């Protein structure tokens, strides 16, 4: 892992969390979407919050795609799970949602999970993949 890779993981966390919160902020203005008015899920993009959130999620996807080119999916997912901590924090700050003791405990567990993978190997070699595919491991 080099600084560029840590930076990519950081960008995934920030873009993903901010994108989700802005998307939610936009949907607060638009009302519920049902089977009867489903095209609203597409036209929602014209709401500025949804548009900005979607742009950030495209940035998230670019970083995510790049990370998956040098790390396993089962490494990238936990390594970027700090986003699940940031979403509740932003939900308090931007959306005015309440976060109680149970959610703080959840935040602690997520952070612990990130610690588990952070020090481990990030990629399964081609040879190991072959062995796993052949059921030899």
């Amino acid at each position, binding site marked *: 892992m080099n600084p*560029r*890779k840590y930076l990519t993981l950081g960008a995934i966390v920030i873009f993903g969390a901010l994108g*989700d*919160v802005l*998307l*939610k902020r936009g*949907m607060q203005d638009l*009302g*519920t*979407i*049902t089977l009867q008015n*489903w095209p609203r*899920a*597409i036209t929602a993009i014209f709401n500025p919050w*949804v548009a900005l959130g*979607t742009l950030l*999620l495209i940035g998230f*996807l670019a970083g*995510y*795609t*790049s990370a*998956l*080119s*040098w790390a*396993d*999916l*089962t*490494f990238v*997912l*936990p390594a970027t*799970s700090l986003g*699940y901590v940031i*979403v*509740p924090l932003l*939900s308090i700050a931007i*959306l005015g*949602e309440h*976060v109680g003791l*149970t*959610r703080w*405990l*959840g*935040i*602690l*567990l*997520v*952070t*612990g*999970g*990130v610690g*588990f*993978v952070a020090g*481990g190997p990030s990629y*399964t070699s081609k040879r*190991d*993949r*072959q062995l*796993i*595919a052949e059921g030899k*491991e």
Partner: protein
Amino acid sequence: MNLLGMDKRDIYTWASIAMIVIGSTAGDVLIARAMQHIGDMGELRRRVGFVAAAQRVLTEPRFWMGIAFMAIGYFSLVIAFSWADASLVIPASGSLTFVTNAFAARIFLHERVDKRRWFAAVFVAAGVALLSI
């Protein structure tokens, strides 16, 4: 509308969350498979330049199949957000996606999911589940 004691809001919320999990898991696996095939983007960019590296990604069919599933996940997320709090939707869909992805990565991507990663998946899934309460 009442199904298994759930009202209309619950049904839309959880059906959307289920679609997010399906779209994300299939999208994750397909994009990861595409990128495994292409190799490290950083190295590729240094070797052949940014445009050629981007072209390799954009001409990979599995990448676009992954994007199509990600799009299903995105629209399901928009619908879920129209019914429920972000602090419920994100942790709930995230924790379920963690578990489905750990299995899918082992089966379809042949990743070495060692004890450390299983512990991480269980910790994060449990933590994320607590976040949704």
